């Protein structure tokens, strides 16, 4: 197995009334397109928040790019791109201004070139002077994606990256992500769109109720006429039945 870019050991997260993560452990190899799947409430978004330094774990530890997310948050954020679960660019900046803002905060010099590239990629040039608050959800999602890609980070955290995108841009983003991994990048992605995930992911983790149900290379989920979606549904139904039996 190549060097892990993410290492998680016995990670737990308790909220006041719920346990979101229950002692999970896994590794993400460098250069992987890693997919994390699970039904609503599985703990995926909590996991992303812990791995990106937005939440402290209750127990256990994690290392991302060799850094501890809860202790070395800023150095980590300089080296990763994050697309959060809900799109939320600032209300009163335009698309072009937000990308400029992100470049300034990240200390990027060739700002113009990069901004033009991503506005073109998402066909946002015509809307580049519109305030983010007045844009559709799809356009806001495109801006969040562009802001995560613009500094060419070695690792991307994507929480439902295809949400609100029409099929054209889903395909375009998917192709870019595949190219990005081939070029040496790594991705940690949470998604409910298993059709896309099954085609692009190299490694998979399936979670439910804060626990890891299974994981491994995508090839281990294919065969006997089944695919990732079949395995996922089978596991979740089995887990649901077990929970009901409890």
């Amino acid at each position, binding site marked *: 197995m190549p060097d892990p870019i993410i290492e998680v050991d016995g990670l737990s997260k308790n909220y006041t009334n719920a346990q979101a993560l229950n002692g999970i452990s896994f590794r993400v190899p460098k250069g992987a397109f890693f997919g994390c799947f699970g039904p609503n409430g599985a703990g995926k978004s909590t996991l992303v928040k812990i791995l990106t330094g937005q939440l402290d774990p209750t127990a256990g530890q994690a290392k991302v790019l060799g850094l501890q997310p809860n202790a070395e948050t800023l150095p980590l954020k300089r080296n990763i791109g*994050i697309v959060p679960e809900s799109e939320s660019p*600032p209300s*009163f900046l335009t698309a072009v*201004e937000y990308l400029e803002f992100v470049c300034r905060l990240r200390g990027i010099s060739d700002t113009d070139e990069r901004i033009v590239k991503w506005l073109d990629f998402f066909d946002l040039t015509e809307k580049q002077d519109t305030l983010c608050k007045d844009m559709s959800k799809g356009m806001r999602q495109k801006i969040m994606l562009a802001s995560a890609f613009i500094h060419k980070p070695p690792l991307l955290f994507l929480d439902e990256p295809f949400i609100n995108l029409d099929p054209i841009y889903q395909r375009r983003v998917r192709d870019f992500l595949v190219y990005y991994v081939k070029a040496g990048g790594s991705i940690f992605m949470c998604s409910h769109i298993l059709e896309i995930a099954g085609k692009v992911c190299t490694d998979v983790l399936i979670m439910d109720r804060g626990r890891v149900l299974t994981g491994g290379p995508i090839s281990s989920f294919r065969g006997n006429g089944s695919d990732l979606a079949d395995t996922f549904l089978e596991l979740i139904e089995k887990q649901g039945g077990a929970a009901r039996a409890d």
Partner: protein
Amino acid sequence: MREEARYQSNFTSKLAFYEFPIVLVAFAFVAGVFYDRLTTATPLPQLLITLHFSVLLYGLSTGAFAFLGKELVDRRFGAVNFLIAAPTTQPIQFKTTTAAFYLKDAAYYFAFTLSPVALGLALAKPWAPYTYTSVVLLWLAISLTFSFGLALAYAFSALYLRSRRLFTAFTLAFLGLLGLAGFTAYLPIGYLIPSIQFQLTKDWLPFAVTLGLVVALSTFATVMVEETFESVESQFSESFRAFTARFARLGRYAPLVAKEWIDLKRSHALTKMVFSFAVPLLFLSFSIWFLNNALGVALKFDTVFYAGNVGFFGVMIYSWINHIDITEYYDTLPVSVPRLIKAKLIVFFLVTTGITAFFVVLMSFVNREPWKLAIALPVAFATSAYTVVATAYLTGLRTNTYLLNGPIIARFGLLTVPPLLAIAFLSLGYDLFPALALQWIAIAVGGMALLTLYFFSKIDGRWAKTTFQRA
């Protein structure tokens, strides 16, 4: 009410939400225990009129529901949605949700601010010479005055959204009536604000009249609420780069300050902030002038007193700056909460320095004491810096929410009220003992400057582990 409780307790706890009224009970209890001293210093009728004026201002300042409804729909609150925005997706009228929001806020203020004050006074009864009946009457009367202010602001704000001309005409008419009541015998103040008449005479007719006015104004405002909230797509040419260049000397804070500055301009918050800063100051000046000249209440404050107040009111500006936009996206960027707090403090000083100086200079000329500017300006800037930095230290980016948290507001009171009181007393004593007062004012200003640096240095430690998430 449940929405309000959940929203306010979102970042603290349910307990903290209910601690705010407990703090009010405690303050009222102390006021009740010292009732004798208070009424010796200021006769009871004048004290009551002052109290009603404050409550009226409180009602006016919280009553702009029609504005709020539009703002809540126009602006994105991140993941938070309020029931008032329900008509955008549900078969219900804005009039209905706005009226429900109004009633909910009225109930909130009665339950969590006015009633605790009455309860505190009632609890102090064994140590005070007043009766329980008078406490109940006071509670009824201030509730009415508050409702009147609330309904008046609700009606005026609804009117403003329909017609600026009518709004201006009605506002001027109301101010004219206030002037008529204050300076002529044609219209006693109790006729204009009948709940004051009820308080002073215990006659139930003014009580019924105020109630009728509240119902009429609220109904009028609800009927005037517009049903269409069209969303407009705003476009602006790129100006972030120019603002970043303008603030270049701020180094790594330049992009953050530029972004905040653009927010202020494009959200039109700058105008509202200046208003929300200037209006209480002008109202304070007007109230003191009105109480002095029209109602014969003996209060004499000089420029240094106003300078202290102008600094204190800066908290509202800081609160506004924190309330303009969502901040969740910062969690995807290499920016820490303390860095953004400091950027917002820089914006605060950019916005307020000029207004503060202008107001203090204005008051020095109104009071015919421009020679006091040499004392008043340092007092204003020191109080302003100290109050806002202490507020930033205590509340971070969630000033509105944390200032409803009992322990935080108690700490806020402990940190800010003593210096303000010290400045107020020293300003009162200045004409009697100028050298001594000047010496102690210098000590107070120096002390506040040192504490400002201390709290500024502690912002990193207090907020370093916080994220930009709402919950």
